[in-house]
């Protein structure tokens, strides 16, 4: 993937830009009913609230978004971000509080919603465009652009039910971006489609940014947040916990995810059978000479310490250490065997230290997995994601690998 940091268009957003969305103390309560027919309701009448369950998807959310910004809503599943997007779009009414808005809006909550399978692509384009607020003559004048952008070609006069899912999505996206919205709401749709299509979406979003359009997007792809947005709102349990720089929001979000993961691991840990041969007690990772939790800066060594309790002495065992990105992709991995180090077969506690000589990680959070293996390669103790460490964000590049970029213009 190319570096997008430097290509992010400068959004000429001055303080004079008008507010386009004002969210004022919005709360949303959902009531879940478990009975849905008349009979169930009548028989359940006497038992009161047994069949009702309520929860707050949003609690006292207040924010104001100025025109021209690209704002990401992030948070884990169930944090209320999609609900907030729907409230902004007017699809769901808030229980209390108000949302005010101006300008033309297009919502891409689900590509192709509103396509009728029995109608042709052409008929659906007109229907969908009119749902998004375009008049017939406006649609007619843009029709050729829409078809060209979608790449559907002659299939435009075929019933949509015969379309492949890719064609369906392309046509829907083409309609949505040609409705000239001032405000575009996007929910996870950038994850749909093949790579070429995704690139087309992203390019379109960039040109939207240059044209001063406002975009609010919900996404789980944190790299997109940093690349595309100039503001991020982090939601947790229906409340705004952070609102500001995307980088800071993403790192806070990773902390929340980490907390959740730790508590889940703790909960799961009680269930596993006690280990026979050995147990990995503690894994820690820190910059050399600093305390655990310190951010790894440029040029510092990384020290990973593994404390093991051996119950049986195993001849020829070895230890593997692997470093993953937040997406679970292996960034680095080594074993004592590869490194040519013999480990003593003992019982009782033992500590192993791995020192990485000035690693060139990109900015972000990384996880450390540790495995102990016998000579045949069988794992006898594992500690996946035993610890994590943070690498200072890099100004000049994105991705998990860092190298100093040196550009020059080549002249023959």
């Amino acid at each position, binding site marked *: 993937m190319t570096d997008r940091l430097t290509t992010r268009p400068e959004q000429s957003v001055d303080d004079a830009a008008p507010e386009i969305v004002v969210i004022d103390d919005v709360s949303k309560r959902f009531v879940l009913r478990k009975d849905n027919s008349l009979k169930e309701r009548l028989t359940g009448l006497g038992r009161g609230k047994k069949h009702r369950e309520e929860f707050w998807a949003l609690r006292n959310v207040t924010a104001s978004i100025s*025109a021209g910004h690209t704002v990401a809503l992030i948070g884990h599943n169930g944090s209320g971000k999609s609900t907030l997007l729907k409230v902004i779009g007017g699809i769901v009414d808030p229980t209390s509080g*108000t949302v005010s808005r*101006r300008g033309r809006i297009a*919502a891409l909550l689900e590509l192709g*919603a509103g396509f009728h399978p029995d109608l042709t692509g052409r008929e659906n384009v007109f229907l969908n465009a009119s749902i998004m607020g375009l008049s017939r003559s406006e649609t007619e004048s843009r029709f050729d652009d829409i078809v060209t952008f979608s790449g559907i070609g002659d299939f435009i006069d075929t019933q949509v039910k015969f379309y492949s899912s890719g064609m369906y999505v392309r046509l829907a996206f083409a309609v949505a971006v040609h409705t000239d919205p*001032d405000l575009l709401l996007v929910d996870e749709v950038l994850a749909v489609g093949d790579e070429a299509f995704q690139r087309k979406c992203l390019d379109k979003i960039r040109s939207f940014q240059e044209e*001063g359009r406002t975009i609010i997007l919900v996404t789980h792809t944190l790299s997109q947040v940093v690349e595309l947005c100039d503001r991020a709102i982090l939601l947790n349990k229906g409340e705004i916990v952070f609102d500001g720089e995307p980088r800071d929001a993403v790192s806070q979000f990773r902390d929340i995810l980490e907390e959740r993961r730790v508590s889940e691991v703790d909960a799961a840990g009680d269930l596993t059978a006690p280990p026979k041969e050995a147990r990995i007690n503690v894994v820690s990772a820190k910059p050399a000479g600093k305390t655990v939790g310190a951010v790894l800066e440029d040029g510092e060594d990384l020290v990973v310490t593994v404390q093991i309790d051996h119950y049986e002495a195993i001849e020829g065992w070895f230890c593997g250490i692997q470093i993953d990105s937040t997406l679970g992709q292996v960034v680095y991995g080594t074993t004592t065997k590869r490194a040519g180090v013999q480990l003593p077969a003992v019982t009782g506690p033992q500590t192993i230290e791995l020192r990485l000589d000035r690693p060139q990680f990109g900015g972000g959070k990384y996880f450390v997995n540790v495995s102990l293996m016998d000579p045949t390669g069988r794992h006898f103790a594992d500690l996946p994601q035993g610890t994590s460490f943070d690498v200072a964000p890099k100004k000049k590049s994105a991705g998990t690998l860092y190298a100093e970029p040196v550009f020059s213009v080549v002249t023959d």
Partner: protein
Amino acid sequence: MSAQARFEALSRQKLATVGAASPSGRRSIAALKEIFSHREMLSLLVRRDLKSRYKDSALGFLWTLIRPLTQLFIYYIVIGKFLSAERGIPEFAVYVFTGLTAYGLLSEIIGGGTASIVGNSGLIKKVYLPREVFPLASVGSALFNFVIQLAILLIFSAILGSFPWSPDFFYFFPSVLVLLVYGTAFGLLLSALNVYLRDIQYLVEVMLLLLLWASPIVYSWSMVKGILGNGLAMQIYTNNPITLAVLGFQKAFWMGGQATAEYPAGLGLRLGIAFVIGLVLLVLFQRVFQRLQGNFAQAL
């Protein structure tokens, strides 16, 4: 458009509250305005309904004719001939078809309207639209079928040599208005209720079957009068807006009964009163719809 020009255009617009969250709920007038601004989409929705209904069928729109003609055939043969209901009713076929045309409009508006919100759940969950357009689109497609049926009726009576050409023809307009206003009112209410309680859909089917027989469509008003007399029961029967509209239709289109048929006194006035009450109901039910629609997206 440059970013700056866009900002300037935006800052000239007023910030508007989204959805029905404004303190007293959206007023009916505002709702009407919003629907009016979506009228093009409304017509597209009606067309979509009509197009998709008979898409891929060989006979296509002919099916819209086959159903009422079959109904006419059954009532004419079974009720008219076998049960000899036609004895006191001259031109019985025209009589029945007139009533069926009127009733068909109402039942199609209410039946289609009730299912409209649930049937369009895909759209409602993903895009904001004034939700009233869906029951209104059912009104549109019902009207389309109605016009076809009306055309058949007129051709039919022309062939029989009794084309409805009399001052009584003007009873047609208040009658249609009464049917439209009641159909729309109940279509709105029931479509919203159906979201929360799917039983409504089936209940409506049963009620529509019942109402068909509660108005003088296949029998005559005077037959009922002969049995109920002039008491309260007869008043209730007569002032049923469907009965009034059906009677109005018969007065307008059924030439065979011009000389002999008996109509309640002051039919025009009754229709007028029914229309006003219908309007009040329409406004009322629209408010109910407005209150309920805020939770459509999550209830579907």
